[in-house]
């Protein structure tokens, strides 16, 4: 195809009837006559259904016979059929980005049904604006970037191990980095797991044996990531291991760093001896309880659902009930009362555990956060919100259910990999409902309590899920990015002020040294083309392909001009 010089731009305009959805409300004759008179338009055609097989072949025929180098389809919303029309243009030998759609159905004929004349005027303006933009369109090639087939899993708890094992089972090379000396994370400190009461360390050993024995998994314990560069497909990571720094390239990264238990300093007289946390309770259970303990009081929501930590940590209720059941197994006649605000025993298994615990004689006492219980030397004073009177419960042992909080090093990892954490320090997922295991930045994935406190069932499921998400780029071997991205249009204007880098929500901009001094560099693979950098740049140095300033100005001027 000849190089696009200004004079020989040949635009084809295909106006769709969409049966009667457009033709029934707009004057199609007037539209096609008007389109013929627009600058650079050399071919106009109307068809009944542009998106049907017949319509597509008409467009392809039009491109080849009239040697068109720009195509406009005036029909429905680009959000549905733009990819279809672009691929048809490509099949006819035209670069798919020399194509522009004009919406004259969903945003014109359908919404101006009783205003045929004004609706037709609007359609004329929109087509004129489309033609103005089409004249300035440039060919683009989709950006391919190959992916290093190797996954990095940070965190060797149940979730991290599950993810690593699953990816390894699918034949991918996995590097698992764990900051502690041994794998297992929280599992090592837990005695038994609800609801099947399987032994936590047995499960941990089984998983650790599988991980250490797997040929595809390289394990680094007592190590941590201290430098990270690059983007999806091409990450350069420095891992500080016990035997020196290792530089390894990765395609994807999985964050499974888990969370730690909040130690309730200064709350309810916590002393780690008589007033302990649920985790310390697990240790006591593991060792075997001192039979002398007869009365145990557990207090829920210690240090959570308040101003400092407004979130409900989800798993402390089920942990408390599980521990209470285990205590009953070891000391059947022990009296256990659980002081709670809301018993968060959500789901099938938890509710069943909750019922069985009541059958075993565990008592539940509701307290109001306004009047919390008070722990004294050998008893606990609590105002029973449901009975409306104060109770004194003898307590040889007080167990405080504290929330899981984010590890301190979560902030460090978030800055290293340019991923965000939420106000409670947990990692912020791409989308709370639709992308719970991804980050906003492509290529990095998330599972387990690093995202939000999760029990074993959820941690394992999220580990598998994150592995599945991570395997998509690995299995394709390359990443295709739509070429609507930011580009440094005016290199001299850029003064490397870094304002755009701070603004970019996708971490797709960085400052790099070039012969002309420091300039902004666009990581095209990570860029989503949102354009906030181009709009904010004080020097107007950045621009967005397919939505360039000059294209938008041309469309504005075309829109404003009166329809002849």
């Amino acid at each position: 195809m000849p190089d696009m010089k200004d004079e020989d731009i040949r635009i084809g305009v295909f106006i769709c009837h969409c049966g009667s959805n457009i033709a029934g409300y707009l004057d199609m004759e007037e539209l096609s006559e008007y389109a013929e008179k627009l600058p650079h338009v050399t071919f106009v055609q109307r068809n009944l259904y542009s998106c049907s097989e017949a319509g597509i072949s008409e467009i392809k025929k039009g491109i080849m016979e009239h040697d068109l180098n720009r195509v406009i389809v005036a029909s429905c919303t680009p959000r549905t059929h733009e990819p279809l029309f672009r691929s048809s243009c490509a099949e006819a030998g035209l670069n798919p980005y020399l194509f522009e759609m004009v919406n004259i159905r969903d945003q014109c004929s359908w919404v101006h049904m009783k205003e045929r004349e004004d609706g037709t005027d609007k359609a004329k303006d929109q087509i004129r604006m489309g033609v103005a933009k089409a004249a300035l369109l440039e060919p683009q090639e989709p950006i391919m970037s190959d992916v290093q087939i190797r996954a990095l899993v940070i965190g060797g708890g149940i979730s991290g191990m599950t993810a690593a094992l699953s990816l390894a089972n699918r034949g991918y090379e996995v590097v698992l980095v764990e900051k502690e000396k041994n794998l297992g994370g929280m599992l090592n400190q837990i005695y038994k797991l609800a609801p099947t009461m399987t032994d936590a360390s047995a499960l941990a050993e089984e998983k650790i044996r599988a991980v250490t024995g797997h040929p595809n998994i390289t394990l680094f314990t007592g190590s941590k990531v201290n430098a990270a560069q690059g983007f999806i497909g091409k990450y350069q990571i420095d891992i500080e291991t016990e035997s020196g720094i290792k530089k390894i390239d990765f395609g994807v990264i999985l964050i499974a760093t888990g969370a730690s238990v909040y130690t309730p300093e200064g709350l309810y007289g916590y002393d780690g001896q008589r007033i302990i946390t649920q985790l310390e309770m697990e240790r006591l259970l593991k060792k075997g309880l001192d039979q002398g303990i007869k009365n145990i009081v557990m207090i829920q929501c210690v240090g959570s659902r308040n101003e400092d930590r407004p979130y409900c940590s989800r798993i402390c209720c089920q942990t408390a009930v599980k521990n209470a059941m285990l205590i009953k197994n070891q000391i059947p006649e022990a009296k256990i009362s659980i002081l709670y605000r809301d018993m968060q025993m959500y789901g099938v298994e938890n509710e069943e555990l909750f019922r069985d615990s009541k059958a075993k004689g565990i008592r539940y006492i509701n307290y109001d956060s306004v009047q919390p219980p008070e722990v004294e030397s050998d008893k606990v004073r609590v105002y029973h919100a449901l009975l409306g009177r104060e109770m004194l419960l003898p307590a040889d042992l007080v167990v405080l259910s504290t929330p899981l909080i984010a590890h301190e090093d979560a902030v460090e990892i978030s800055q290293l990999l340019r991923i965000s954490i939420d106000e409670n320090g947990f990692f912020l997922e791409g989308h709370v409902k639709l992308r719970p295991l991804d980050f906003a930045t492509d290529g990095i994935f998330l599972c387990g309590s690093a995202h939000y406190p999760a029990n074993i069932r959820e941690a394992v499921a999220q580990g598998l899920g994150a592995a599945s998400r991570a395997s998509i780029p690995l299995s394709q071997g390359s990443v295709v990015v739509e070429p609507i991205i930011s580009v440094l249009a005016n290199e001299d204007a850029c003064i490397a002020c870094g304002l755009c880098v701070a603004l970019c929500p996708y971490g797709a901009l960085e400052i790099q040294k070039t012969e002309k001094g420091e300039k902004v560099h666009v990581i095209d693979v990570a860029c989503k083309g949102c354009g906030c950098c181009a709009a904010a740049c004080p020097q107007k140095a950045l621009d967005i392909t397919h939505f360039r300033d000059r294209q938008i100005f041309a469309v504005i001027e075309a829109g404003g001009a009166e329809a002849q």
Partner: protein
Amino acid sequence: MLDVGRHPNIELLAYSEVEKVEGQAVDFKVTVRRKARYVEEDKCTGCGACAEKCPTAVPDAFNEGLGTRKAIYNYFAQGIPSTHTIDADYCRQLNGKKCGICEKTCQADAINFDQEDRIIQLDVGAIIVAAGYDVFDPSLIPEYRYKEISNVVTAIEFERFLSASGPTGGHLDRPSDRAVQAEIAGLEKRVNKSQRALEKFEKKYEEGSGEFYKKYEAGQYKDDEDYKKWADKYAGHPAIVETLSTLKRKVETFTVAKRLAFIQCVGSRDFRFYPFCSGYCCMHSIKEAIIANEHEPETQSTIFGMDIRAVGKGFEEYKVRGGNKSGISYMRGRVAEITEGPDNNPVVTYENTHERKVESQEFDMVILATACAPTKGIFELAKILGIELNKYNFVKTSPQSPVDSTVPGIFVCGCAGSPMDVPESVAQASSAAERAAEMVFQSQSEKEKAVA
């Protein structure tokens, strides 16, 4: 949904059911029945012209029967695949009466009335069950009188009331008010009909109905059949007009529902039905209450629950914010009974456990947060696949392998496995996909080893 429809690697068989499964992990033979839709899938562009012209109105299942759709329909506006379907039970043509309007209207001539069910064989390596759940039918709970009191609705119906594409376009018109409005519409039709009948008589006899009636009463046209009909028509006319205007005055007093009651654990945590907790209903009610408040700032909601389980990420903060900003109050207690007070207002009787008093309160509308019941078809599907169900009739899984069913190679995700909310379902979907991929990969490597 759009991505699924357009993804080259996904073959979407909508309106189809699995009939038989043979073989075992890694190579299953699955027989699928593609039910006849009487529309050619490859020809239909989903433009919707046929639906506009179709004369038969049918209660719309997507809107819980609150709105109506046509006999030829797309399940909801932007449903994928956009291919329309003819509802064989309601379509006149398929029931022997003459019609075929949709066939005439369709310019892509995609309508094919003698399309048959088609049986398809599939060879697959793994199967993922994502059969979802059914909404518990609250009419099984007599004390909530779901069927008798029109202003008691289920959560899913309330969702349709609030939705901009729902039957009321997002306005919280009370069902009792809508019934009155439907009555008014019926009456208006009757008034016009009788008006036209009177005019026909007047034209026929060139005489105003008023004078004719005076003469008729004076005994002038006693025995004439036609005149008698005219007189009865004229006598009955004012009565209809009268009831119509009283109803119309009553409609002026109607307002959007402002006092809402959300009753949690309807069917859940209940030994008579489902002893488990369905997990998402607390959050769903809080969301509905907040949206209702956004639509109508004076809306006040009370959520009755034993525990308000806001356990997910950001849920507790959402619940607290709902309480502070969107006029929601949380009442700890289980609702005993709903009776109908004056002006169709449901009255809720409950024990306020913090005050240890039995109280009752009148509301404009009551929303029942219904339980997540296993789908009706799960029993048959389980038999076909050979997988076990747990005692609550969800697919049996274990905490260590949460997405594996009891049969290797068959996996489960979402509410078919156990009640859960959207974020967990989406996460579990990826987990099931991963396990399936693992299974398929292992089989390939074994085949290669066998060949090598």
